[in-house]
């Protein structure tokens, strides 16, 4: 089981869009995928038409009084399940603080799902907190969407330093530019230069496209409702890079006979 996490300290940079589309693409490749919507705003849950509610709330999940797999819901897509958001996730830091080894808690909660899922994607809320630390410890690959500004690159460096201080397992970082505005020269320049210079950058960039925003109207991944669009093609390229970074083969297993 490979764990991916979409993470950025900032909000509105494309974390959820990435998580939802990569989750769909991984499932389409035949991987058994679980997407955990950790953001109390519940955007990923909304996009899959799943009510953002978990019985017992985040406390029951984190403390283990309710098994994680009890809360899992199937999406409309084969092989793709969702652990929905819950408004109580806003207190996950506090709940984690009361748990043993809080920084390792998410990893230990996910461990029993190894036989059930090949890929887990954690869609994180924008913050730097005990929860994000627990996510960073659980993840194999950290997908970091960045708006192409000098400041966001600096934030990435801070994150890299922070992870560098971990003992034991460290996630690989795969940063990529998101919401690129093709009309802005600075965007285009940074998006062209940095991926060529740094190993932790994906070659793929995700442009700012209205079709991606359309996901909240269609309530489905753009890769599902418009699979031949530019947006879908870019997410497919990004998934291919992320998959290779995690050491996964292009196709997990053939889908069911039809």
């Amino acid at each position, binding site marked *: 089981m490979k764990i991916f996490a979409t993470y950025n300290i900032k909000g509105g940079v494309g974390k959820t869009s990435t998580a939802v589309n990569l989750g769909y693409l991984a499932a389409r490749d035949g991987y058994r995928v679980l997407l955990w919507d950790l953001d109390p705003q519940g955007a990923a849950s909304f996009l899959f038409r799943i009510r953002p509610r978990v019985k017992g709330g985040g406390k029951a999940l984190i403390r283990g009084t309710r098994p994680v797999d009890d809360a899992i819901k*199937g999406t409309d897509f084969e092989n793709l399940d969702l652990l929905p958001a819950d408004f109580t996730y806003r207190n996950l830091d506090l709940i984690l603080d009361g748990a043993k080894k809080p920084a390792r808690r998410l990893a230990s909660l996910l461990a029993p799902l190894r036989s059930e899922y090949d890929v887990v994607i954690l869609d994180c809320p924008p913050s730097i907190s005990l929860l994000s630390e627990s996510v960073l410890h659980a993840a194999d690959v950290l997908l970091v969407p960045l708006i192409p500004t000098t400041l966001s690159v600096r934030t990435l460096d801070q994150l890299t330093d922070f992870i560098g201080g971990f003992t034991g397992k460290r996630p690989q970082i795969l940063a990529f530019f998101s919401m690129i505005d093709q009309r802005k020269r600075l965007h285009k320049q940074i998006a062209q230069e940095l991926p060529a210079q740094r190993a932790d950058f994906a070659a793929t960039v995700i442009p700012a496209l209205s079709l991606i925003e359309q996901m909240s109207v269609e309530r489905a991944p753009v890769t599902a409702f418009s699979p031949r669009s530019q947006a879908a093609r870019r997410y497919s390229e990004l998934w291919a890079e992320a998959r290779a970074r995690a050491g996964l083969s292009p196709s997990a297993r053939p889908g069911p*006979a039809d």
Partner: protein
Amino acid sequence: MPDAPPDLVPEAAGVPAPPDALTDAPPDALTAAKLSGSGFSLVNGVHGARRTTIRRTWLDTFDWRLYRAGLTLEQVTGRGGTELRLTGRDGTGVAAEQFQGAARGRAPRWPGQPDALPAGPLAERLASVVGVRALLPVARATSAVREQRALNDDAKTIARVTADQMSVTYPAAAQLPERLAVSAVRGYQAQASRLAGLLAALPGVTTDERPALEAVLAAAGRRAGDYSGRIDVQLTAGMPAATAMASVFTTLLGMLEANVPGTISDLDTEFLHDLRVSVRRTRSALKLAGQVLPRGVRARFQPEFKWLGDLTTPTRDLDVYLLGLPDMTARLVGADEADLEPFGDHLRRARGRAQRELAGGLRSARFGHLCRDWRDALDEAAATTRRRPTAEALAASSIAAVHRRVLTSGAVITAVSPPESLHDLRKRCKELRYLLEIFASLHAPSVQWRAVQELKGLQDCLGEFQDTDVQRAELRAFAVQMMDERRTPAQTLLAMGEIAAGLARRQRRARSQFAGLFADFASPAGRARIAALTRQAVS
């Protein structure tokens, strides 16, 4: 899906099939109308309408080992390739194997052994249940499946509803009524159950609790588990013995005939095993209770069944050897496994020759006449007007007589008695066992069970003694043959010598256990267990 609701069967006029050219069309009007106001709606799949045709083959062993273990093995072939699915009786997935893309051509062909499957959980699980038996198609059907999604009022898919129009092609052609199945999406079991309830309440829809295989077999006039190696004859204490024995012999003849095609085709070794057991039971019953048949019948058929038994012996002896060879090889200490390969090859060649002779015998006019004439004779016997003796009296007297013979033969066996005396006792024990099985329906199950268990312990010991004795003698004969062929390496003969030593050790162990087991069997308590059967009968 663990809590799958049962399938629903709409009557022809209940839920009409959608138009043939359904693409993105709405669900059929009647269902839609009935579901309106329920909060549910049925729509086509995310990628449009999904209509598929699949070929389905259900597989099991001849004696239904998977079915008896609560398992169902189904091979599904569609456009995407082939999938083998092993499920529990409730449809829960146990293991699966897919043959798609490049692996498509590697899909197994049936009948065949499960070891033809790629190594993995499915092959492993099947091997543990199926043992040495081959998997055979028990039913085939073609399914035209239409799948729709059931949405709740958030337009979220909560279940997939499939309408399956199945045409059975084997074991007989038959058409099944369309079956609707509701498969809950994970986390939406409660809503899916409510939907299934609504669909079940539609006029003309009935609930079918049976798994698909059972429905298919029923439509084709067959029943899962309709063969086993046990004698399933219901006798009553007061029925005329001739009628009872005609019924027993007819059942045994049915079992014998059922195993002929599999033996001729050499699908697995158990067909021949069961065929031989039927012949031996028939011969024992003829010898010990055949006097109740019309005059001359026993004398006429005894030599024919002896011929049949003898015909089957060489192949079975070689089967026993070949089945035991891996275990014998694993126990080698001095020799190497590879040393025995020429011996294995020799056995397989010999078996090939024996099998051809056996198949020829089973295809012969003599065998055909035997089965036909025997059935005619049994039909005549069943119509007897002789009321005496009764089945109960025959059971009691024949069991008591053979029991006496077992006790007499066993009592004179000492540590220095020749092997033949133990072989003879083994035959008497087998005769007693067959009588207990044949007349089982006349006895209380618990009394019968206790008697059989003790006898079985003694039989196992005698069987081990005789099998190892015969195998040692055969091993010597094989060694001579192989020397004559002048192709056998010395290390093979040395390895065979090691096997012979192992067989001698096993034989000595069996002999040392015999006295204790026989003493238990012949003890007052042991005698009482058999005596209870000859006194007590259940009508």
